[in-house]
Every structure is written in C-alpha cells, then in structure tokens.
C-alpha cells in the first residue's frame, strides 16, 4: 500500500514537473518570440514625395529637394532614398537660373547640384506608383533603384508636400491620395514587416487630416497644419518670381542646419521647435501609435543614417588573379547596414583546391599512371610560363638552323 502511495506521489510529482517545464518552455519561447519580434534597427530609408508640378509650385519642389539634401548630408545614401519629383523646375523655360533651384532668396544653396538622383520623375509620380513603392508590389521589370527595399529593421522617413485638403492630398493636379489609402498602405507595410518605425511628415494645407486614419503601431506623424488651417509659404523670391519655400519646411531646415551626423538632438526638440506664430499654423503631431518616448529618440534615427560596426576576428585575404579559381572562401569583414553582411563564410584559405583541367589518373596498379601523374603535376606546377615559351622559341629557331644545315 505504501508502495502504491509512493508510486502515486512519484507519478504526480513527475507529472507536475513535466507540466511546469512545459509552461516554462512555452513562456521562454513566448519571450524569445517577443524578443525576436522587436528586431534590431539596422538601416534608414527615406521616401520624399513632391506631389505638385508647374512653375508656380516651385516651393514644393524646393521643399523636397531641401529635405533630400539634409537627409543626404546626415548620412542616408542615394540607394536608400526614393525621391519622387515632377522635376520640371530646374530646366523650366521660366527659370531665370537654369539648372538651379533655390530655397532661399539669398541664393546661397543650389539644391539642384551635381548629385540629385530622382527615382520617379515627371508623370511617373502617381498615386499608384506611390502606393506601389510603399507596399513593395511592383511589376517584375521595375529596377531596384525604384523599389523600397526595407525590412523589419528599417526606420522609414516619409515626407510629403504639395497641395492638400481635408483627408486628401492632390497628386500632380489630376489625382488624389486619400487618408484611408495611406492608412491602408501603412497597414500593409506593417503586415509585411517592411518597417520597424515610420515617421510621416506632411507639409500641406490641413496636413494633420492626412494621417488621421492611421492605426498601425510604430508610426509617428507630424503635419504642418491642423484641420481647417492653411500652411503658408515663407517668402517670395523677387528674382525667381515665385515663393521658394514653405514655412514648415523652412523651420525644419533651420533646425537641421544646426546639426551634423553625430548630434543626438531628440525628436521632441524638433517637434517643439515649431512656433505657431511663425508658422502661421499649428504643427500637429501624433505619438499615440509610437511606443518609444520622443524625448529619448534622436532625430538621426530617421533623418540620418545608422553606422553600426560589426567586429570580426577573421583575417582579410586579398585574392590574386591566378588563384581566383582555386580559393573558394568568401571572407568579408562586414560593416554595412544590411543584414546580409552578417553572413560570413569563414574558411581556411590555406586549403587550396586544385581545379585542374587535366584529369589526374588514379594511381594504383598501373606504373604509367604514376608517371603520367608526375608529368601532369610538373606541368601544372610550372610557374614561369613566359621563360619556357621563350626557351621554346629559341630552341625552335636553332632546330630550324640545324636541320637546314644538315639537309643542305
């Protein structure tokens, strides 16, 4: 009887321990899952969209180009910037300064410098292309430079400027992007894990209405004006003849011109730098979908670039031309922002695999095979080919001379 009770106690304790371990493992898995879902911030992308065309919308293009320049200056490379512009200002017939675009009447900065890379220009800036860029659903033939190739570690800056209104944004005077379209696209992006954090910056009239429908977590948005307010241009350049910059972007740039790549001014300082009296509108931002605290997030998380070094101990070997076919190792000391760089195949470069064209006969019973192998190895081990060829040529000439003399 005591045995059975001991057995019962034992079985019960075994059962409880099993259950407890199962629970623990599931919780550990859950935690690790949660840990895995909060991925590392590895790269920054910027999507800069100017939705207007025609000469009198000069300031919208100047806005976008100024932000392009800022973002490049703070470190994001062209391959991670998608720039959508109508691009009809710089070479417009009305432009007194051909191939130059200014955002200030002092003409200090030429925004249309040497290295402006526009990805979608002219009539390619459409709502469809914009949504395709955001969601990543392109035709097969679209080149990589026109795709937003972000992943779950990306922080994306989305800047839009142009003419807008209550819950819409006008594209190139012929289409509209509505706020629920934008919210839908952002939701798709979140589902497909195309961003870790997203900052939407809108500089249009009644800008805050454009992101009113957003629900996805990890999104931060700021607009230049609230519902019912207009956003105004900053000043008129009497030389060019049109207004050259909008107020919201002007003060944003004023904030960024004080910064360089290594500063860690926070997002809250950016948001609080907007003075409604100067903007003549209220710059409204929403942080309810954003988990982090804006006081602690540096602006370079969105406007600059990530410089992360991955330390590795394996040696770097330069591969020469002759050994190209022999060495199979692919050692790379990666420091770029891509996740792909973390794949390192380390192998021992000392091990030389001989890819010879001449088949080496298996040695064994045949003595000739050994001789042939020896000859083949000697043939392949010969380094100084040129010398041998020269000797061969000299030998040929002497042979000719000797044979001629002999037969005459």
């Amino acid at each position, binding site marked *: 009887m005591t045995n059975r009770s001991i057995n019962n106690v034992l079985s019960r304790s075994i059962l409880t321990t099993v259950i407890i371990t199962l629970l623990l493992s599931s919780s550990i898995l859950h935690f690790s899952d949660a840990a895995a879902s909060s991925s590392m911030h590895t790269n920054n992308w910027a999507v800069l969209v100017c939705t207007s065309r025609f000469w009198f919308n000069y300031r919208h293009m100047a806005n976008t180009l100024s932000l392009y320049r800022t973002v490049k200056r703070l470190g994001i490379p062209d391959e991670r910037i998608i720039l959508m512009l109508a691009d009809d200002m710089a070479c417009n017939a009305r432009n007194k300064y051909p191939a130059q675009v200014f955002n200030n009447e002092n003409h200090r900065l030429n925004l249309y410098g040497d290295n402006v890379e526009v990805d979608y220009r002219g009539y390619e800036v459409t709502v469809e292309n914009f949504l395709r860029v955001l969601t990543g659903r392109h035709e097969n033939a679209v080149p990589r430079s026109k795709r937003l190739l972000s992943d779950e570690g990306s922080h994306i800056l989305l800047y839009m400027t142009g003419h807008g209104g209550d819950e819409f944004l006008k594209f190139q005077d012929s289409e509209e992007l509505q706020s629920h379209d934008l919210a839908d696209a952002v939701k798709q992006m979140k589902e497909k894990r195309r961003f870790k954090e997203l900052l939407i910056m809108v500089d249009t009239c009644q800008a805050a209405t454009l992101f009113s429908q957003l629900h996805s977590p990890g999104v931060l948005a700021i607009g230049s004006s609230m519902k019912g307010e207009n956003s105004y241009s900053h000043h008129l350049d009497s030389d060019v003849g049109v207004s050259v910059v909008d107020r919201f972007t002007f003060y944003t740039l004023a904030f960024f011109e004080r910064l360089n790549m290594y500063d860690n001014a926070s997002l809250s300082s950016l948001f609080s730098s907007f003075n409604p009296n100067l903007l003549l509108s209220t710059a409204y931002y929403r942080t309810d979908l954003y988990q982090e605290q804006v006081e602690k997030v540096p602006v370079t998380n969105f406007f600059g670039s990530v410089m992360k070094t991955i330390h590795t101990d394996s040696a770097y070997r330069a591969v020469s031309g002759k050994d190209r076919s022999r060495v199979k190792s692919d050692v790379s000391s990666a420091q770029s922002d891509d996740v792909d760089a973390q794949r390192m195949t380390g192998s021992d470069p000392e091990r030389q695999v001989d890819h010879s064209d001449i088949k080496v006969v298996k040695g064994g019973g045949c003595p000739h095979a050994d001789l042939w192998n020896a000859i083949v190895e000697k043939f392949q081990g010969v380094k100084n080919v*040129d010398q041998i*060829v020269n000797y061969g040529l000299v030998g*040929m000439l002497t042979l000719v001379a000797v044979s001629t003399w002999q*037969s*005459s």
Partner: protein
Amino acid sequence: MEESVEKTTRKKHPWFWSSALASIILRLVLIIYFPNTLNFSSRPEVSTPVTSLRRLAEGYWLKRSSMSPYAGSMYHGSPLLLSILGPLTIDRDEGQSHLLCGLAFVIADFVTAILIRAIGQRLQGADIQSLKSLGAGRHLKISENFPTGDIASLVYLWNPLTIITCLGYSTSPIENLMIVLSLYGACKRLVPLAAFGWVMASHLSLYPVILIIPLVLLIGSGLDTPPRKLFLQEKHGDGYKKTKTGSLHLINFSWRRVVLFFLWSSAWALYVLVLCGISLKDYSGLGEMFKRTYGFILSVEDLSPNIGVLYFFAEVFDFFRDFFLIVFHINILFMVLPLAIRLHHRPCFLAFVYIAISSILKSYPSVGDSALYLGLLGLFVNALADMQFSFFLFSGYLGTLLLSPVMHNLWIWRGTGNANFYFATAMAYACFQIILVVESVSSMLNHDRALKQGTTDVAKKVCQSLKDEPGLPTPRKFSLPK
C-alpha cells in the same frame, strides 16, 4: 652553271646591294625622324584587326595582367608573336618602343628581300637550263640578260606599299617572311626549312595553307619548267621512242621528299601547338586560341572598314550570313584545283597566283599582302614581259591607292561622303588586282605557247633535215590560238 650566272649578274648589276642598303636607310630615317607625322598605323588599309600592332600591345598587356590575351576580342594573332614582339611594345622611354619594333620589321623586310633574290637566282638558273635543253635561243638570251632575283627583291624593297607596311606597325612583314621562307626552302629542296615556313605562315594567318600544293610540287618535281610536253616533243622530233603517257606526270617526282616534308611539317606543327598550349596554359588553352584566331578570320566578326571585299557582309541579312560566309571562303578554294592542274609545271608561279588570290579574297586584306605578291611578280618578268594592260594596271593601282585614304577621310572625318565612296575605291582596287592576276596567268600561258612555237620551229628544222630518212613520222602541226 650557277656560279657563272651569279658572276654575270654581279658584274653587270653591282648596284643591287647599294639599292638595298639605300632602301633600308630610308626606312630607318623615316622611323627615327618622323615617328609621329606618318600615322600609317591608323589607316585601315595598312593595319587590320588581325595584323595591328596596337592590338598586339593590348594582348601583351592583358597577358601580363594575368588575363587571357584574347579577352575582350582585341587581339587575334598567335601567342608566339606575343612572346616575341610583346616585350618590344612596352613604352620604356618616349620613342624607344617604336624604334625597336620598327627595327624588327625592317630586318624582316631585308631578310625577305634577300630570300626573294635567292629564289630568283635559282629560278633563273633553272629557266636557263630548261631553255638550253629545249634549244629556244631567243628566249635564252632574254633570260640571261634579266637577273630576275635582283629585280624582284628590289621591287619588293622599294615598293611604296612595303615601306608603308613597314612603317605602319603591322605584323604583315613577319607573315610575308614566313611565306617567302617556305618558298625558298622548297626551291632549294631544304625540306625542314620549307615545312617550318609553311607551318609558321599558316599559324600566323590561315590562308597560306593553300600553299601546300605548290610547295609539294616544288619539292617533288623541282622548279619552274616549260611544259613537259615540249621535252617529249623534242625527243619525239628526234626520232626517239615514245614514252608511256601514263607516267607523264610522275617523271622525276620524288615521293620520298614529299613524305619527308609532311613528316617535318607535322613535327613543326606539334611543336608550335605545344608551345602555344604552354603559353596559354593558365587561361583557357588551345580551344580558345583556335576560336579567336582562325575562328575570327573565318567567321568575320569585325566589320570595320578595310580594303577588301568585306563590304557586302555589312548588308547581309543575319539569316543568310552563314551562307554568304561559305560562299566567301569557297571563292578561294574553288580556284585552287583548276590552277593546280593547269600550272602544275610551274609551281613557283602557281604559288604567286595563290598568294595573289588569297590577298584579294581574304577576309582582312591589307596592302602588306599586295606588297608580297607584287614583289614576287618581279620573279617572272621574263615570262610576263608581254603582259597586256600593264600601264593601265599601274595607273589603276596608283589611282585607287591614292584615292582610298581621301575617300576614307571624306567618309569618316568630314562626313561629306558616305561608306559607298570608300568601298567604291576598295572594289576598284579588287578589280585591278583581279585583272593583274588574270593577265599574268594568261601571259604566262602565252609564253608557254610561244616556247612551243619556238621549239616547233627547231623541231621542224631538225625534222626537215631528217625527212629524207624513211620511216619517220612527220611532226604534227600545232595551231597556236591568238
């Protein structure tokens, strides 16, 4: 026999060596003092994709950078040339590379001229011998008076085309040297030398392969002779017994030497292939070499302008390109056999005709090829003295060769002409070359018939004197076509 001929030539024409030296000095002066003004290497008539020295320098640089010399489809020549001429093309000092290269080509030209002279002397000796045995006295005097060797080699040295080729940094002088070396070896019955020359010439450019037939004939049956029928006819006129017609062609044909020639040429070919294989061991081997050299010549991939009949490939539909390629190359092959049958008794002249035809119809001709056969033309001045249209041909050559650079300039640099201008001169040049070949062949055949006439006169006289004797058949009457 030969020594007396040589002594007479030296006595009567001591100016050969001085003229030869003068032409060498002229070339050296032009190379040293005018290296940049005479830009012959940029002319399409002089340097072709197969012979250009600039491409050889590129191939050599590629080889030194551990890449295959055929990468990038620039160089299409032999890897052995890379080893020989490559180090000369390095720009050590400002102009020294040009000097060394130019010196190499001048030496090649000089050796070619000396060899042509030696061939000419042997040809002349053989000619005099055969004419003496035939008894054609009139022709004998002409043959003795004209030292064809000297004339031919001086024509070769002083031909403006040869000088231009030498200054134009193309590898044609070396190819010409190999061809003439093979002819010389065959004339002197030096079988290894002839085999070596033939193998090297075919290795450097594909077309000297057809020279196998005249070389075999030269080695087998000796130098140019009048047709064998004349010898037999003379014997026939003497009342000698008839020989078997079956062995007409095989009289004095030494098969042993021909077999030796084939053995030696296969030995040289193996040697050359092994050397090329070693030289290209690290890259891709002999297959790529064949594809890039012979395959390039045969498939005519580069259609940049040249002075050949290549133009129609620019107008050919892709679908028919293979057909036109076959027609283009068979053009040369079709002429090989009939000419061999007709001119088998004159193998040296046959070689000249083959060289001329391949210079006209090869895929990348240049003036260097023309220089060679114009030089060899001088070997046969005795027989070709009565050539028709000689002045017309001379002015035609001069005219097209002067107009061709002008048309090229109009087409490419000024833009006031178009491709038709340039290729009109190219086609006219081809026409004149063809007329030259046809006329030289026909005048050589006329010379043979004239010899027949000369010997029939002699035979008639002999027969007349013997006519009294009974039982002798009367000599047949030969009707000479006009």
